[in-house]
């Protein structure tokens, strides 16, 4: 059985088939990239997994559990974290509180305990804080801890979003275009971090990406999509040579 599996996943908006009977599997500990031209349905697949959209048909399995009908907030509790293509951070909060929100799935305290800020809450806060600090160190975010998101440049925000996802200690992380809007050096950093996430933190990565150099550097396998259908699946080199993929990108 695969670690993560999508079976015949479809998402239709009226007559438009954004995702059309897509099936794929992710193995534990691999980096799988989804590529494809604009509108191919890449982000839609992510939104189906994180339950922002409800699939028209098909099923999603994670660790042999059917998660198709889980409410959105349970997806994160199961250990699937994600980032967004257009950065969805908490703008008017500090970097630190953004990252601490990432710890939400691990919070166990009750409301009345929090109102009194009992020692148990304080102890929990310190544990959260320590885990957040590890992620801050991992992603070199030390200079920004107390800064408000609204005053930070785009590249940093992108990293903070990744950090927030990592703070939840996910088993599977969904990265929606991690390199969009980043310059060459920032993209380099990102590719190192993605590989480190796999090797050091043992996170399985499913990512949507346009930058083929990044895809080639980090991916174990690649899936190419177009018009909501899978064109090709395999190693990065195989997929790029596949005639259908070439046709989709360059026009036949």
């Amino acid at each position, binding site marked *: 059985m695969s670690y993560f599996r999508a079976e015949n996943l479809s998402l239709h908006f009226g007559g438009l088939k954004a995702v059309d009977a897509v099936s794929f599997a992710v193995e534990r500990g691999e980096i799988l990239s989804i590529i494809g031209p604009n509108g191919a349905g890449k982000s839609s697949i992510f939104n189906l997994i994180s339950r922002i959209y409800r699939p028209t048909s098909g099923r999603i399995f994670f660790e042999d559990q059917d998660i198709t009908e889980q409410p959105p907030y349970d997806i994160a509790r199961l250990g699937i974290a994600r980032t967004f293509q257009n950065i969805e951070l908490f703008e008017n909060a500090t970097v630190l509180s953004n990252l*601490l929100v990432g710890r939400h799935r691990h919070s166990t305290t009750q*409301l009345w305990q929090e109102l009194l800020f009992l020692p148990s809450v304080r102890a929990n*806060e310190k544990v959260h804080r320590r885990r957040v600090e590890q992620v801050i160190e991992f992603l070199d975010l030390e200079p920004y801890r107390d800064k408000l998101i609204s005053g930070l440049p785009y590249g940093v925000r992108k990293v903070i979003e990744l950090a927030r996802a990592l703070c939840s200690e996910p088993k599977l992380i969904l990265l929606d275009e991690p390199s969009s809007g980043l310059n060459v050096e920032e993209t380099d950093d990102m590719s190192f971090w993605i590989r480190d996430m796999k090797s050091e933190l043992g996170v399985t990565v499913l990512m949507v990406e346009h930058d083929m150099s990044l895809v080639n550097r980090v991916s174990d396998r690649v899936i190419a999509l177009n018009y909501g259908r899978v064109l090709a699946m395999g190693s990065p080199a195989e997929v790029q040579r596949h005639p259908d993929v070439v046709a989709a990108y360059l026009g036949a």
Partner: protein
Amino acid sequence: MRFLFKTDYEDDIRLFPHSGYIVSYGLLLAVLLIAPYVLSSYLMSQLVFVCIYATVGVALLILTGFTGQASLGHAAFLAIGAYTAAYLQKYNVPFPVYFLAAGALTGLIGALVGFPALRLQGIYLVIATISFAFIVEEILARWESVTNGNEGMRVKAVSLLGVTVSRDSPTFYFICLAVLVLTIVGTLNLLRSPTGRAFVAIRDSETAARSMGINVALYKVKSFAISAAITGFAGVLFAHKLSFISPEMFTLQLSIEFIIVILIGGTFSLHGAVLGAIFIVMIDPFLTYLKDDMPGIIAGVAATFGAGSATAGNIQSKVAAFASLNGLKGAIYGIIIMLFVLFEPLGIYGRWLKIKLFFQLFPLYKRATFKRQKIYVKSERNR
């Protein structure tokens, strides 16, 4: 300027970041504790109202400022708290019991209001909460067996441990102050724990909050319940302070006053609730003063500039007529809100922070320091 070097995770958790805070809040508390023995009874009465309004302000901040759910229905929550107290008092329920019961009942009703509010956002939520306030007002006026209808209800003085606490006594003021301080401390505790962060997350991005494992619906209902419960507690004190309550005291105007409290104080910090409460309570005597004395002053000025006594008298009566127009107070409130939203969206507390920074950085303060923030606030208005 003070630089904080953090050496412990505790530094990010504690309520007072450094000793300066302890000194200044200690002084403030000392002043508040000796106030009843120094100030006139009129000012003491105003101070009690400041405490009550600030408590409601904190409640509204939790809901509107931190969770991002607007409400124009808080006068109704206040009314529910007040009437619960008045009703239970008739059956000789002791003060601590009906105080807690009022908070619990209001919290429960707040949660019930929260459920339909889950599907509404922005202006639609405001309309829904206004409707709720009207429904409550109407119920209070018609459910005569419980609320005594439009004739209103008398509220006896607080009876605590066998002692009767008059509404003008220092003890009553201390009760109100204690409720305010406990509310603030509880709210600060909430804000530095997962629930408070979840509220802020929902305010800034529901999508991201959901994908981080926050049950958005549950936390919105929680926010409504907490906010309503605190307002219910304030309602009990409000009823005791007025010693008489009737439905027309809890109108839309009162809800708007609560919105003014947080808008003018500043929606991003609890300081705002207190500053806004001081503003709204103190503007009333100021307006009364203007209404009484302004016509005479203007006539006097006109006379010194050579107007005849007949003309001056004419001016005086015209200005007096204008000052006693119906709805002038509402218009002035409206203008104040508009000016604040346009020119100081961060409220009095935001302005205070800027003044403080000016002195901390003197003479290096730049006008552009808050430019980016301001631009951000302006562009967000169209969202």
